[in-house]
């Protein structure tokens, strides 16, 4: 067998993306402008798919909360002067699984930020829709610091999700990891 130098195989990447039912994907820096542009593309795509207006709103809002959480985290890291990883470079995908849409995002994160995030996700996992609504309203009243928006976003996503939020943490080294979150709407 002849082996040639391995090129970057875009076909292979495209096949992987297709195999997982991904319809739209973006990997790179999440600027606010990119979030706006992708948001419009997602809306147009869903309109063409003729989903109900309520589902369109749900998928769009989960997409916005996911991407803004990644973006806000990167802004926070930058403000703290932590630049050893490109926190702003993330990935977001929107796909289909059976009758549902799945919105996933992934980004680099500090391992030390994971325990509180995991605790929050586990707390949401045990709540029904009514309890989630009560928690959401309570958080709306108690979140004072404008930078603490992430918690509210997670509850909002859990309210719109048809299945529990799924997350994964891929350890990179002593300090950092890659965090991913998938929300089935």
């Amino acid at each position, binding site marked *: 067998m002849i082996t040639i130098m391995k090129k970057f195989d875009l076909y292979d990447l495209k096949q992987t993306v297709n195999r997982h039912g991904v319809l739209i994907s973006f990997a790179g820096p999440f600027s*606010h402008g990119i*979030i*706006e542009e992708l*948001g*419009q593309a997602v809306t147009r795509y869903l309109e063409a798919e003729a989903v*109900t*207006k*309520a589902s369109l*709103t*749900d998928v*769009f*809002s989960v997409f*916005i*909360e996911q991407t*803004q959480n990644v*973006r806000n985290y990167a802004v926070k890291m930058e403000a703290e002067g932590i630049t050893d990883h490109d926190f702003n470079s993330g990935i977001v995908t929107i796909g289909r699984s059976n009758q549902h849409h799945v919105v996933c995002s992934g980004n680099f994160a500090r391992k030390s930020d994971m325990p509180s995030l995991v605790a929050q996700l586990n707390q949401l996992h045990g709540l029904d829709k009514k309890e989630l*609504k009560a928690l959401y*309203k309570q958080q*709306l*009243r108690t*979140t004072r610091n*404008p930078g603490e*928006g992430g918690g*509210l*976003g997670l509850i*909002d996503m859990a309210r719109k999700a048809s299945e529990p939020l799924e997350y994964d943490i891929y350890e990179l080294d002593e300090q950092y990891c890659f965090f991913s979150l998938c929300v089935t709407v």
Partner: protein
Amino acid sequence: MENFVIEPTKSSPAILFDGTTGILDIAGESYPENSYEFYKPILHWLSRFCNNFREAIVFNCRISYLNTGSTKSMMDILDLFEERHSKGLAVCVNWYCDSDNDRAIETAEEFKEDVTFPFKIKSLEE
């Protein structure tokens, strides 16, 4: 009082507060990069109005989508109105939403639950 005007962008709504009539119009999508900073000036303007004038306030809201940060700021605006209402001054909200969008109606109803002043949910065509 002078008017307060903000032009819309893709992710932030148009805001017009008429300082003479007390009519506040907000229309568009709301997921600005920093919702707190975006809504701070209008909140400040409205508090000034509330502290200095006794005229009625009518808020016509035509926001098609609010992210969680904007929802928080919207609660702050409604809290200010609630305070005004508790002092016996007139405030009312006309919240317009797409009658085909159950989620938009639900969002409006959740705001309505938290206030005691007149809050009408209207169809966009009205």
